[in-house]
C-alpha cells in the first residue's frame, strides 16, 4: 500500500500527506499514510479517491482518541481534519457557532467568551479535543446535567460521504424539524458513517456567578441525599457522584457529591443554601468559590483522563445507569476504582488500573441488569480482543447494520471499529 501516498499525491498537494509516524497511533493501526486536507473540497477529493481505490479510511481530529472504540479490521489511510479548523460563523446575536470539524474546543472557547458565550461541552482532554472528534464520540462530561449531551447541542452538520459527496442536514437555527435528524445519527458514530467536515452548535450565555458544593460521607447517607436532591427543585449546572478513590484524589474522604450552581448571584446563593439545608449531620459539606470552584472540576477530569499514562494496563469505560442506581453501583466497584457518575443522566466514566475480561463482564453485568450499559473506551489491545468493547445489549443491531450498509456500502469507513463489528 505504499502507493497510497503516491495516488493521493495526484489529488491533493504533497504537503498534505504525511507518514503514519506523524501521528501517535495505537500499535494496531498501521495505515500507509495520513492526510491532512485543508479544505472541505480537498477532503471530498480524498474520499472520492479512497473510494475508487477501495482504501479503508479512519477519520481523526488530533488523533489520539483513536484508541477508543473497537479494534477494527485494518486501515489504509487516516484522514485528519486537524487543518480544517476554521470558524465559519459565530452568529453572536443568534447564539450559534458554525465551525469546521478540526477546530479545537480550546481554541474556540476564548473567542466565544469575548461575547460571554460558550459551547456547553466538557470532554476528555479538553485541550486537544476537536469538534469532530467530540461529536463522533459523543464525548461530554458534567455539563450534561444542565445542557444535555452532544445530541442536544448540535443543530447542523456537513459530512463527506464514502463516495466523496458532501451531504448536510439540519441548519443554523436552533429549532428545525425539516428532514431526518442526521445530526443524531452521526453523533457517537465513531467515524463509521462519514467524515464530519462542519458542525453548527447552539451556544449558551456565560453565567454571572458560580459556586460548587462538595458533600462527602458514607454510601447510605449519600444515596439518600442524592435521592432528595433529584426530587428537589434545585437546578445544578453540574452534579456528579465520585467514588471514594476519586474523591480521595481531590483530598476528600468517602463518597463525594459535587454540585455546581451557576446563575445570577442571588440565585446561586439561594441554591447553595437550599442544598446545605438538605445535608444531614452524618455528611460534611464545603462550599468552593473562585479558583477552587473551577479547579475541582478540572481535577476530576484530569484524574479520569490523565495526560500522561500512569499505567499501561489501565481501562477506561463509559457507563450508563438509571440515576437512582448510581451510588449502589459505585459502591460495588473494586476499591481504588476512579469513577464519576453524572447525577441527572446516570452516565459516567470509570477508570481501573487494570482489569481482566471476567472483571469487565462482571462490571458490565452490574450495569445491564439495571438496563444500563458499559462500553470500554481505553483498554490494552489484548483485553479489547477478548471481550466485546461496546456492550450493546439491545435488539436493533439489524437496523444499525442496514444503516451502515447504506452509508458505507463497501465497508471502508473505520471498518470493524463500531458496535457489532460494523
Amino acid at each position: 500500500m505504499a502507493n497510497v501516498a503516491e495516488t493521493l499525491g495526484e489529488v491533493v498537494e504533497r504537503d498534505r500527506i504525511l507518514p503514519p509516524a506523524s501521528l501517535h497511533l495505537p500499535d494496531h493501526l498501521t495505515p500507509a499514510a495520513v492526510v491532512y486536507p485543508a479544505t472541505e473540497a480537498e477532503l471530498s477529493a480524498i474520499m472520492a479517491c479512497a473510494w475508487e481505490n477501495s482504501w479503508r479510511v479512519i477519520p481523526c481530529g488530533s488523533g489520539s482518541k483513536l484508541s477508543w472504540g473497537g479494534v477494527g479490521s485494518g486501515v489504509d489511510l487516516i484522514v485528519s481534519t486537524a487543518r480544517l479548523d476554521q470558524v465559519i460563523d459565530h452568529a453572536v446575536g443568534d447564539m450559534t457557532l458554525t465551525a469546521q470539524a478540526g477546530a479545537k474546543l480550546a481554541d474556540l472557547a476564548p473567542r466565544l467568551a469575548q461575547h460571554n458565550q460558550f459551547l456547553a461541552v466538557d470532554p476528555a482532554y479538553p485541550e486537544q479535543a476537536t469538534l469532530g472528534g467530540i461529536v463522533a464520540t459523543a464525548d461530554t462530561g458534567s455539563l450534561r446535567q444542565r445542557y444535555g449531551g452532544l445530541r442536544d447541542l448540535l443543530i447542523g452538520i456537513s459530512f463527506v460521504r464514502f463516495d466523496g459527496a458532501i451531504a448536510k442536514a439540519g441548519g443554523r437555527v436552533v429549532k428545525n424539524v425539516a428532514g431526518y435528524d442526521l445530526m443524531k445519527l452521526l453523533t457517537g458514530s465513531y467515524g463509521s458513517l462519514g467524515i464530519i467536515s462542519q458542525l453548527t452548535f447552539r451556544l449558551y450565555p456565560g453565567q454571572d456567578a458560580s459556586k460548587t458544593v462538595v458533600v462527602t460521607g458514607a454510601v447510605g447517607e449519600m444515596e439518600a441525599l442524592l435521592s432528595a436532591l433529584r426530587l428537589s427543585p434545585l437546578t445544578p449546572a453540574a452534579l456528579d457522584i465520585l467514588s471514594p478513590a476519586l474523591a480521595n484524589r481531590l483530598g476528600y474522604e468517602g463518597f463525594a457529591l459535587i454540585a455546581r450552581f451557576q446563575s445570577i448571584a442571588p440565585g446561586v446563593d439561594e441554591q447553595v443554601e437550599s442544598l446545605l439545608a438538605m445535608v444531614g449531620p452524618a455528611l460534611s459539606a464545603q462550599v468552593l468559590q473562585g479558583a477552587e470552584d473551577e479547579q475541582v472540576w478540572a481535577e476530576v477530569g484530569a484524574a479520569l483522563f490523565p495526560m500522561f499514562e500512569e499505567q499501561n494496563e489501565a481501562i477506561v469505560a463509559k457507563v450508563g445507569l438509571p440515576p437512582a442506581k448510581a451510588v449502589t453501583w459505585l459502591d460495588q466497584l473494586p476499591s481504588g476504582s476512579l469513577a464519576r457518575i453524572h447525577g441527572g443522566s446516570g452516565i459516567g466514566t470509570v477508570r481501573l488500573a487494570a482489569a481482566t475480561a471476567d472483571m469487565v463482564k462482571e462490571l458490565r453485568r452490574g450495569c445491564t441488569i439495571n438496563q444500563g450499559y458499559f462500553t470500554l473506551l481505553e483498554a490494552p489491545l489484548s483485553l479489547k480482543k477478548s471481550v466485546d468493547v461496546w456492550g450493546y445489549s439491545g435488539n436493533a443491531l439489524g437496523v444499525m447494520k442496514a444503516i451502515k450498509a447504506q452509508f458505507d456500502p463497501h465497508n471502508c469507513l473505520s471498518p470493524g471499529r463500531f458496535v457489532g463489528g460494523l
Partner: protein
Amino acid sequence: MTVAERSRIDWVPIIDAFSVALGSDRVVRRKEEILVYECDGLTSYRQRPAVVVLPKTTEQVAAVVKICDRFQVPFVARGAGTGLSGGALPIADSVLIVTATMNQILSVDLDNQRVVVQPGVINNWVTQAVSGAGFYYAPDPSSQSVCSVGGNVAENSGGVHCLKYGVTTNHVLGLKVVLPTGDIVTLGGEVAETPGYDLCGLFVGSEGTLGIATEITLRILKAPQSIQVLLADFTSVEAAGAAVSAITSAGIIPAGMEMMDNFSLNAVEDVVATNCYPRDAAAILLIEIDGLPAEVTATGDRIADLCRQNGARTITIATEAEERLRLWKGRKAAFAAMGKLSPDYYVQDGVIPRTQLPYVLKEIEALGDKHGYRVANVFHAGDGNLHPLILYDNAIPGQLEQVEDLGGDILKLCVRVGGSISGEHGIGADKRCYMPDMFSPTDLETMGWVRQALDPDLLANPTKLLPSPRTCGEAAHSIAAVTLPNVEHF
C-alpha cells in the same frame, strides 16, 4: 371516486387477515365511519384510506404491519390527527393505523424521572399523572390537550416552554418501535446514549416514515418552585425584537418568550376578550421565567429593565397561577381566535435566525400585500420560530391556492435568511416540495438512505417528508432514489 382512481388491490384477503389479528370490531371499513380519518389538522387535503385499523398493543401493530408487508400495501400511522402538515393524511389504497386507543400510561418511575406511555396517550395526561408528585412533562404544544405523544414523537413537536427545556427529542429516552417489516425493536433505552447509533434520536421527527412507535420512555422534570410571567407592550415590532435580543444577550434564557403582533392580539381581544393586551400596541411579548424564588424575582427585574430600555410602554407582571393563566390565555387561543375571525386560516411554520426578526416581519407584510392577504404573526420569538397565520375563505375558488403560494413565499424567505421550512409542524405532505429549497440533491439522497435502510419497500407513509419527482417536478428529479419502481402505483 372516479374509475381511474379505483383500487387495484384486492382488499378482501387483507381485511380478513386484519380481522383475524385484531378482531373485526377493530377494523373499520364503512364509509361514514372512515370519514373522520380523511384528513388531519391540515383540513384542505382529504383522502379516504382503504381501511382503518385500531390496534391496542405492540403485538397487534406488528401483526398489522406484517400483513401490510406481506401484501405490499402502504400504511400511514395516525395519533390524534392534529398534525398541521398532512403527516397523517391517508394515501389512496393505504391502511390507516390509528394509535388513539393505545392510551395507557405503562409506568411511572419518579426516582429516575421517567414515564413510559403508549403512543395514543394525550400529551397533557403525562403531566397530570405526575404533577401530584411535583413533576411535569416539558414539551407543551398548544394542542397539548388533544394531541398524542406518538404524534409528538413523530413530529418532534415543540411548545412555548421549549426555549429553555428543549423540544420532544430532548425528552425521549427510548422507544419501542414496530419497523416497516413488522419486526419489533427497542431504540435507545432507560438511560441516554446507549451504545450504537442514536436510532431513538433518528426516529424522533421521522413523521411515521420509519415505523410506528408503540411505547415511549419520556423524561419528566421537577416543577419549578416559582414562576413569573411578564407582559410587555411595544409601539414597534423592531423594538420588541430588540428586547428579545437584549434578553438573550444578557445571558437569560426564559422558559418561554412569545410575540404577538397588532393584528393577532386584536383578533384575540375580539374573540377571547382577555382585556390584558393593549389594542394599540404594535407587538407584545409574553415572557415566562421559572426557578427558585430569589432567582426568579431578580431575573424578572432584569428582564423588565431590558424591556424598558428597548422601549416597552407598560410591563405587567404575574406571579399567581390565576394571573399567569390570564396573561397566557390569549396566546394559547390565538389559532382558535383566527378561526372565529375568518372562515378559514392557514398556519405557516418557519424558522429564522432570531436576529432577522424585524426584517422578516416587514418582508412578510410586503408579501401579504403582494398576494392580497393579511398575515397575523404569533410566534416563538425566543427561538425564531414563526407562525404566520393567513386568513382566507376556502369557499372562494382559487383562494386556497393563492394562500399556499403566499405560504410558500414565506418559507422561501425563511430559507433565504438562513432559516428552516419547519420548526415544529413537520414536512408531511404539505411541504415536501419545498425540501429542495433547503437541501441539495445530495442531502436529500443521503436522507433517502435512512429510509431505504429502515423501509426498503417504501410502505411506511411513503408520500411524506422527502420530495419525489412525480409530485414535485424537476427540482426533485435527482433524488429518484426515494421512489422505487414498486411504488409507482401510488
